């Protein structure tokens, strides 16, 4: 196995000319996006610009109408076993956490490794507890999701995704449903994940996170990628008028 370095970027997720409609609504318009191994890409854009849809097409929670999406060189397969196998390697973290409501925090983390990867329960549990420790909720392992705060639930959701040893992690507004005081505990986990070399695609409005952790910021508007740049350049010298307009709105808030 070759070890990719910063000098030789190797594409992990590649979208080319992706189009997606919801009925008459054209939500993704000729989207091209390449995310390299180890890269952290933050996706920004106004509400309804297609950020969630973009994220969800990558593990085929949404189908696309035309174009191609490849992950690790392989096209995302159609519905079936192969798709499930691919999804096992693509972690996803949702705005609304979506922890399995009938399972404890630990069981949420174990379900994938045991049922999908076929790892023995004992070994999976050791690893699961390690992951819960890593996201700072080892003490809550045996609680039900309903007994956890939003921030805790989201950290369990991150541990659940990590338990599958994903090649890439998708985050769709992971902190938007959280009370302000809990946002940082989740962003801290994400930042350390980024530092550890995880490939990440993150839809978020947290500019601090984008500046701190992102290698690149992608700006979407009305289903198109309008501009992309490294964070410093993106925030200080945005090129397009739409980006400038968007930034002026959210940065003054």
């Amino acid at each position, binding site marked *: 196995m070759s070890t990719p370095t910063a000098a030789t970027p190797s594409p992990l997720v590649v979208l080319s000319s992706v189009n997606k409609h919801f009925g008459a609504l054209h939500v993704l318009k000729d989207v091209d996006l390449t995310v390299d191994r180890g890269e952290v890409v933050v996706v920004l854009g106004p509400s309804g610009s297609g950020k969630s849809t973009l994220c969800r097409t990558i593990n085929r929670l949404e189908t696309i109408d035309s174009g191609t999406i490849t992950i690790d060189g392989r096209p995302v397969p159609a519905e079936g*076993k192969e798709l*499930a196998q691919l999804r096992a390697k693509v*972690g996803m973290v949702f705005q609304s956490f*979506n922890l*399995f409501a*009938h399972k404890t925090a630990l069981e949420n983390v174990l*379900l994938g490794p045991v049922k999908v990867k076929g790892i023995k329960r004992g070994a999976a549990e050791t690893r699961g507890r390690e992951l819960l420790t890593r996201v700072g909720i080892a003490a809550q392992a045996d609680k039900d999701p309903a007994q956890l705060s939003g921030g805790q639930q989201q950290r369990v959701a991150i541990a659940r995704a990590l338990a*599958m040893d994903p090649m890439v992690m998708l985050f769709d507004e992971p902190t938007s449903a959280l009370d302000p005081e809990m946002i940082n505990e989740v962003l801290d986990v994400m930042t350390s994940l980024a530092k550890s070399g995880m490939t990440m695609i993150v839809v978020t409005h947290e500019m601090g996170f984008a500046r701190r952790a992102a290698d690149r910021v992608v700006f979407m508007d009305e289903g198109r990628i309008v501009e992309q740049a490294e964070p410093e350049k993106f925030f200080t010298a945005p090129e397009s008028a739409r980006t400038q307009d968007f930034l002026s709105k959210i940065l003054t808030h």
Partner: protein
Amino acid sequence: MNDVLDNLDVFLRGFRTTVSLTLLAAIGALILGTLIAAMRVSPVPPLRWAGATYVRLVRNTPLTVVFFLVVFGLPEVDVKLSFFRFALLALTVYTAAFVAEAVRSGINSVPAGQAEASRSIGMTFSQTLRLVVLPQAFANIVPPLASVFIALLKNTSIASAFFIFEGIQAMNQLIQKFGDSVLPIIAATAVGYLVLALLSAFLFGLLERAVSAGR
């Protein structure tokens, strides 16, 4: 009244068949109905269509017609079974449509994010259904299922017209024999169904409480 008490064994024989038809058809309908509900929520459009069509067809066909189709239609294509098995088949096929609706509405009561989270960690459609969605849907499936199965209990009476000796046939036979006791015999039959229905409702009530206590 004496005619009823003296012939309790006839009632018992009849109602034993009523109970076995109900139980066996309930099991069959639970399996078939759950499969059909799974088809209706599957990611494969032809399966979804087939499931929906089954439910629509069966729900809009009188049970008596289903019985006629099975009892007289199947022998035409060389399927020959005992009348009991024909009756069981008709009741199963019919009740499955209603079970499917109960299961499907239970599935729909589980937030879509649960299935999405499950699929996104690589679980297949059937794992998602078995391990994530159905366990959470169960509490919402049990109450409508109780009415479906009580309806099934009463629907077994149609089998009396197709050569099955069950509760209603027991009643018929006794009425033929004891013309003076028509009312007591009918009343006793009604009580028989009532007892069975109340018993089912009681058992489902226990199940419902067990399910909601487990959450």
